[in-house]
């Protein structure tokens, strides 16, 4: 195990591109296995979260060195906006609905999101200050 970890670190250092793509493939494989399991047995937790929990457990338990995931995970996270774009184009399928109610939908989303963000920020900030005051 130690030898394998050392080799992974060496790869991440000497061949960053090879390391990045092999790590992306590794994450995809873990996700695919979890997704299949979750579908097959109709679990309420989706495969992506299962895969995340599994990877996190692996990191925590030291089975997986963080260096062995870093480049791949960072790439996936950095390009995440790309993966969202095709989902946006579903607009084309709902053009009549959006023409009729789009303005109101946008209003609901804007007002709702502003409320959510303000609430979350204020709550967390209050809790943060409160716990700090208690610590002093």
């Amino acid at each position, binding site marked *: 195990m130690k030898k394998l970890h050392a080799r992974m670190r060496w790869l991440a250092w000497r061949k960053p591109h090879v390391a990045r793509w092999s790590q992306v493939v590794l*994450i*995809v494989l*873990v*996700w695919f296995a979890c997704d299949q399991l979750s579908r097959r047995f109709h679990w*309420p937790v*989706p*495969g*992506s*979260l299962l*895969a*995340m929990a599994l*990877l*996190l457990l692996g*990191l*925590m338990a030291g089975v997986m060195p*963080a260096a062995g*995931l870093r480049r791949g*995970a960072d790439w996936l*996270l*950095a*390009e*995440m*906006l*790309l*993966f*969202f*774009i*095709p*989902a*946006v*184009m*579903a607009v*084309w*399928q*709902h053009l009549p*609905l959006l023409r009729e*109610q789009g303005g*109101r*939908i*946008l*209003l*609901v*989303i*804007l*007002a*709702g*999101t502003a*409320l*959510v*963000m303000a*609430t*979350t*920020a*204020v*709550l*967390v*900030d209050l*809790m*943060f200050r409160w*716990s700090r005051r208690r610590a002093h």
Partner: protein
Amino acid sequence: MRTEWLSLLWLAITLGGYFALKPLYRRHPRWWTSPLLTVPLLLAAAGLLLGMDYPVYIRDTHWLVLMLGPATAAFALPIFRYRRLIQRHWAALLVGVLGGSAVAIGSAWALASWCGLDDAVRRSLLARSITTPLAMLMSADIGGVPELTALFVVITGVAGIALGELLLRVVPLRSALARGALFGVGAHGAGTAKAYDIGAEEGSVASLAMVLAGLLNVLMAPALAVFLR
């Protein structure tokens, strides 16, 4: 043109547009330069020429959407990296996520009813604050249209990046914790990407808040479905 070639062309335009327009966002990180807005605009312009046919478009590009699964799994790394931060502030995060999610669902329902939107649209709006794969799952559970939800999720993302920027300028938030949680709970993955632009600590808090909010919503969906019947 044959459908297969057209689908491939759409994939090429999507990828090409993304990698061509991303440097613009690098140089001027604003909500209106976000690839989430500029690339769909480019695609819409191309759609006027090639025809706006969603089934043809998604035929080859659905691989990209599938990658959201591994991308969600990749959040394990930032969470691991900032585990100390999370251990120290788990209570604040939990309160923020719980409160934020409650407001997300409550405000969507109340505002949509007030605006007189269709029931299917109203139900599809409830899951809009959480990350796409989970939102589509939750939407199906509570009687929404998953595809519409995916669309609302993305609109929320773009809106959230813009609103978050504005909020940070107006409201003085002292902790990276609050700055990150705001983006994670309010604008899921898109907000998390924005939070990483502000700082690594904000980004990892945002990703954790996003994951927590998503989990909470999905687990609560069956109960919500009974409640909304």
